[in-house]
């Protein structure tokens, strides 16, 4: 009796679930096939199959420099945000100082403040500093944006780590530096890598700040896409989108692997 009562409910739940998945995946399901179309303009459904647009992406100077720039900015952002964020997380979880709560809120604020507000504020400042429209400017801006992800990931690792391990290290003769090097850092490494991957992704597909911080001489991939789509809708954009998507997906899979490799505590 309870089964006959449950059957329609189950169908409803599966249906709703499928609908949600479709809704989330739809843009992806449209853009990926479009990147293989033989048509000259962006269209759905695609016609035929070709890799021309991918070839165009890597041979065309504007697209390929955009790709290289994006990769460079994302990599530098990931390195800078990871180093600074790890240090900040250490200070915020282990340190005791006046205004710790305020500093914590400040570090996490880019998660809450609208990106466009950050972009305009930084633009004004960076023009004055003469780093607007350059690699340095964009890396600095993206680092601020990515910092909270690293701080949250590393602080979580630090908080869940058994503090007795650090006491044990000290007891066994490790000074604070060696204790960090041999014990703390290897144990929080999965958290640090998580932060690094999130930083990379944050910068990789960021467009709002990038529009303000780039120039005709220096453009990242998302900005290039935005510029190109305004002029002509050729399917290279779809190929570029698919590339962005694949890189992000690979990184997220990497993240799962990192998480699984973490020592079970």
């Amino acid at each position, binding site marked *: 009796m309870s089964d006959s009562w449950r059957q329609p409910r189950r169908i409803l739940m599966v249906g709703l679930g499928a609908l949600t998945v479709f809704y989330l995946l739809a843009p992806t399901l449209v853009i990926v096939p479009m990147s293989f179309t033989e048509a000259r303009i962006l269209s759905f459904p695609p016609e035929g199959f070709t890799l021309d647009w991918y070839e165009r992406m890597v041979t065309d100077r504007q697209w390929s420099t955009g790709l290289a720039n994006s990769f460079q900015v994302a990599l530098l952002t990931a390195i800078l945000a990871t180093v600074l964020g790890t240090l900040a997380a250490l200070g915020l979880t282990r340190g005791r100082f006046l205004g710790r709560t305020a500093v914590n809120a400040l570090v996490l604020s880019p998660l809450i403040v609208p990106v466009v507000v950050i972009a305009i504020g930084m633009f004004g400042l960076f023009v004055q500093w003469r780093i607007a429209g350059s690699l340095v400017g964009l890396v600095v801006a993206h680092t601020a944006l990515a910092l909270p992800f690293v701080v949250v990931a590393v602080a979580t690792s630090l908080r869940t780590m*058994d503090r*007795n*391990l650090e*006491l*044990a*290290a*000290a*007891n*066994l*003769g*490790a*000074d604070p530096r*060696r*204790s960090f090097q*041999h*014990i703390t850092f*290897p*144990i929080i490494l999965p958290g640090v890598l998580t932060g690094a991957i999130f930083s990379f992704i944050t910068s990789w597909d960021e467009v709002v700040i990038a529009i303000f911080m780039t120039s005709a001489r220096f453009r990242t991939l998302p900005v290039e896409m935005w510029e190109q789509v305004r002029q002509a809708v050729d399917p290279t954009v779809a190929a570029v989108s698919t590339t962005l998507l694949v890189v992000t997906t690979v990184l997220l899979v990497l993240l799962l692997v990192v998480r699984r490799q973490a*020592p*079970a*505590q």
Partner: protein
Amino acid sequence: MTSEQPALVLRDLRKTFGSAVAVDGIDLEVRRGEFVTLLGPSGSGKTTTLRMIAGFMSPSGGSIEIDGQDMTRVPPYRRDVGMVFQNYALFPHMTAAQNVAFPLRMRRQSRPDVERRVSEALDLVKLRDLGGRYPRQLSGGQQQRIALARAVVFQPRLLLMDEPLGALDRKLRESLQLEIIRVSRELGATVLYVTHDQEEALVMSDRIAIFSEGRIEQLGNGEDLYDRPASLFVADFIGESNILRGRYEADGADGGWMTRGPWRWRVGRVAAEQAALEAGAAAALVIRPERTRILDGGSDLVPGSNVVDATVGEVLNLGPDTKYELTLEGGQRVSVREPRERGGRELHRGDQVRLTWAVEDGLLLADRDVTST
């Protein structure tokens, strides 16, 4: 430096957290090679004391001396003291052998030395074959043995153990108790051991320091503490005790009396002298359950013994012994432990009996928290 020099000296050691006093003036000397246990209920300051000795907390007052050197302000990594934690605190990203090698590597010993001493330490705890395993691949008991090997491999001046067997089941605990005793004897290690398990303390220790409210109530070997408790707290904490509260009345040089309601019990001369109570003071008479007897209805009172009426409650079979929970007039509970074959009639719940004990088996102690007379 003489060989008589104690391995550890604590002088008036104190620790306060805000207005809360965790350790309230501890004085303790531990001889080289001695096994001393800090025993007490949780929150009595024993773990805080241990952590100050390890250097994890700095004292609010007093001093810590190890091998004659003042260590009060020395950071933990320069104290040369080994510690075993309750949760093992093995480094999860290192194998058992790497864990044991860690203190040697921190001391920059040569690779062959490290290898030799690690394998010696693993032999010592009988885990030679498991050196390549990670902590998560070891059982709780194996992890604790690796932690022990790691804490002794660098020949520390002092070995501290903070409830090391607290997380293990009873059977494993008992076998590891013997293992720890064997290892510490083989190495001639000086051990300071924290536990709240009195049986463990009695089995393992040369001397036991009973902690209560941040102070040492009494320091002595198991026999001292059991036969000559210095306070009611110690009498109650070590072993089981029947505590009869009342007022003390002196009776010349020949001991005295305890009175409680209609009852009057004789207090032995030795017990009275030790307690040195004023006449009329609130006092407690402590008798161990195995020193108490149940009198059968008809039998006569033996001269030189005390007596009180009681009602039988629970009757518990403890294998060779039977334990009787009895209630005195006024609701106080006492227990009696007797061999199972007690010869007389069998007792059941509700039976009226008389309890008796030899005068010299009653210990007289001051009753500090007087509520009833």
